[in-house]
Every structure is written in structure tokens, then in C-alpha cells.
């Protein structure tokens, strides 16, 4: 009987650990890839004319971002390999490729400045508030029992 309790406790612990793992690896983050001119501290980084970013391992199309633009992507888990390809103007050839390992910060640094990254600035990702428009309002369940409706 004792033995069973110990084993049950172990199973619960294992499940808790597994849950933590699931949370870590399954949590979705919305990342904004920014290809604009940016100034961090005293240094300014100019935007790149045209890039293609993809996150290693996550299926889904890579984002292609023009200079001065930004785009969003939802990813799962915190550890990622970010692949940046710099494209030539004719959108055909890749002129340079670089891969960067990064971990999404706990505060959820979601604004990724590619120019800053490529220049090696440590503060290339920051947190900004996303203004996600809430879906159209729908109300709480309507009264179902007509037998109890207002008499007038």
C-alpha cells in the first residue's frame, strides 16, 4: 500500500514536470520582425532593403520583409534558431545568410529588430504591447427558459 502511494506521488510529480515541459515548449508567442531604421542608445542601424526570415524547425512560411516594414509570426516555445537571409533587390538571389540562436525572454521580448541583430547589438529584442483588437463583442448566454421570462 505504502509502495503504491510512493509510486502515485512519483507519477504526479512526473506529470507536473511534463506539464511544465508542455507549457514551455507549447506556449505560443507572437513575434514582430522589424526591418526599420532603429536607434539603440547612441547607435543607429539602417533598415535592410529586403530580407527573408525563418525560424528553424517551425513549419510555416518564412516572412519576407521590405525595408521600413515589419511583420508578425506566431511561434511555439522559447528556444529558436532565427535564420535571416538578405535578398537582392530582384527578390531572387540570397546575398547573405546568417543564423542566430535566441531564447525569448520571460518578459516576452517580442519586437525583433533585424538590423540591430545583424549588427550584433545585444538589445535587439524588446518588449512592446500589442494592440490586438478583441473579436466582435458577443454576449453572455441568453435566457433559455421562456417560462421565467419577464412578464411584460
Amino acid at each position, binding site marked *: 500500500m505504502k509502495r503504491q502511494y510512493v509510486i502515485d506521488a512519483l507519477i504526479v510529480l512526473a506529470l507536473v514536470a511534463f506539464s511544465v515541459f*508542455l507549457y514551455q515548449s*507549447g506556449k*505560443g508567442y507572437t513575434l514582430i520582425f522589424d526591418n526599420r531604421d532603429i536607434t539603440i542608445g547612441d547607435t543607429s542601424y539602417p533598415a535592410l532593403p529586403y530580407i527573408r526570415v525563418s525560424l528553424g524547425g517551425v513549419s510555416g512560411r518564412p516572412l519576407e520583409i521590405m525595408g521600413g516594414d515589419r511583420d508578425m509570426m506566431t511561434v511555439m516555445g522559447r528556444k529558436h534558431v532565427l535564420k535571416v537571409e538578405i535578398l537582392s533587390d530582384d527578390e531572387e538571389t540570397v546575398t547573405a545568410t546568417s543564423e542566430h540562436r535566441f531564447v525569448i525572454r520571460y518578459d516576452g521580448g517580442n519586437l525583433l529588430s533585424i538590423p540591430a541583430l545583424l549588427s550584433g547589438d545585444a538589445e535587439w529584442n524588446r518588449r512592446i504591447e500589442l494592440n490586438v483588437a478583441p473579436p466582435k463583442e*458577443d454576449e*453572455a448566454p441568453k435566457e433559455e427558459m421562456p417560462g421565467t421570462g419577464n412578464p411584460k
Partner: protein
Amino acid sequence: MKYTLREQISHFLVQYAVPIIFVLLSVFAIPLSRFSTQYLVQEMVARLARDSFLVLSLLIPIMAGMGLNFGMVLGAMAGEIGLIFITDWNVMGIQGMLLAMIISTPLAIFLGWMCGVILNKAKGREMVTSFILGFFMNGVYQLVVLYGFGNIIPIKNPALVLSRGFGIRNVTNLAGIRHCLDDLFSFNVMGITIPAATFLVIGAFCLFITWFSRTKLGQDMRAVGQDQEVSDSTGIPVERTRIISIVISTVLACYGQIIFLQNIGTMNTYNSHEQAGMFAIASLLVGGASVSRATIPNVFLGVILFHLMFVVSPMAGKYLIGEAQLGEFFRVFVSYGVIAIALVLYSWRRHKERERARRSLRGAA
């Protein structure tokens, strides 16, 4: 004891009256609906994957003689609460689904235990009690989800919460885990997508039920289901066994609801569970199960026949009478009617059996 062919046929007809009616109904309605075979097969495959697990969760209480577990909606509620949490945390994909299952399990166990204890106080009227318990807990669920979430239980994601600042919206978007199990690996056969992973889970679950019925606990449940007094006199803990059967059913219904909703992709926060219960029970009965006897083939046959009728009838109604609404009402009527007929047949048969048992006490006159 030998039966004549005639007796065997009539026995078969009585036993499978409901499925036979449904087959005939489908044969009549399918051509009317003008759906292509391809479309119907695809629909049936999808619905089989979506609903089978929920229906399977009903089997164990039937084994334990507690009838149709209308209390399975409690499990569905637990699953939905898990889904609300993972949606709020934005945990996605198969991880999200598994996490929802894990966090809703303790809740489902608790609700199942509570349901079991209450049903033990209402022996002999388990079905109507679990039915009302479902309604009652629906009120409690609303209290928690509509007033507790966002007030007492913090919810961060504004997309989930009503504009007044607390309470979950009528519709919860489950885009994060949509089709995550179905698409884990699926393949095409002649243009029909088969969600293989979901079917693997369902298959594993069928194996579990078969295995479970061969354990000591399964044997005890069958014994309790047939005669509580005898079981008690041989020392089987009757009440505990009954509670366990309801707990298992509730937990499985919770998983079933999660699998169901990952396929649908959106959740009607306040009435998904009620529909889950009604459709699952109707499907099982359509498959030829009764209140006291249900097998795994009943489940699959039932899901297919019930949903065939469900898909086909609005269009059939539209082309037949020019009123799609009529078909809608017809399928609602059929869902309830099937449950009513199955309950009547069961009660009637039990009545007759009791009479026959009484007569067998009489010696040769």
C-alpha cells in the same frame, strides 16, 4: 435452449430495431440530399474521429449497471475549463492539447467522484439523477466561467474575456490547437483525408476498454452491474466500484471533449458540453446499444448512422419540401426521439423480464 429461425429473426429485429430504422432512413434520404459519396465518406471519417472517443466514454458505467451516464457533461465541462486555461496561456499545438488534458484531469476526477457519490444516494434512478446533475452543474459552471473567470481566477488574454472585464465570451477560439491531433499525421486515400493519429488514440482506447473488462476491477463492475446485493455479500465494495466507474467515465468524457473541440476549433463556452452529452448518448443508442448493454461496435456503427442522418436530413428536407429548416427540426426530433424510444424499450423489456422471472418461480403446473 434452441430457438427456431423465426424466433432468431424476430429477436434480431427487436434487438436492432433502432439501427435498422436508421439504415432505412438513410437509404431513403441520401439520394434526396444529392450529396456526393466522396463528401459523405469524408464527413463520416471526420465525424468518426471527432465523436467516437466521447461515445466510448459511456461504455464503462453501462458495464457497471448505472445506465447511460448523462453525467458525462461534467467531464466535458472539466475539459472545457482546461481548454480555457491553455487558450489564456496561449499554449499551442499538441502540447496545448496534452496540457489541457492534464490540468483538467484532477477536476474531472473530482466531478466524477461527486457524481458517483450522488448517484449512490439515488440507486435505481441513476439516469434521471445524473441528467439533472448535468443541468445543475451547468449552473455552477456558468457561475465559475461567467463570473469567476477574470474576477477570482485571473485571465490575461483580453480576447477571451467579455468587454465588462470578467467572464468568458460565448465563443472561445481554439485556433491554437485546432486540428493539432488530426493533423499530427494524416494521409489521403482516394481524396479522403484520414486523421490517423486520432484514430490511433481511439484504437488505443478501445484496447484499453477491452483490457479493462478483463481486470479484476472490470469483473467487479460487471458483477455489481448485474446484482448489487450478491456482489455485496461476496465482499465486493459495491459503492466504491460504482464511483470508480463514474470517475473513469467522467475523465474519459473530459478527454473526449478535448479531442472533439480540437477538431472543431471553436468552443461554444456555454453549451458545447450539453450538446456533447446528448449527441453521444443518441449515437450510442442508434448503434444498437441499450441502457444495460453496449459494445465497441455499437459505438462506431452508432456514430456513423447518427451523423449520416444528421448531415443528410437538412438537405433532404430542403429538396423534398423546399424547407431546410424542416430537416433541422427533424434531426433534433430524431435525436430526442431515439433516446426516448431506447429508454421505453429498455424499461418495457425489463418489465417483461421481471414478469418472466416471476413466472419461472412457479413450478410445473
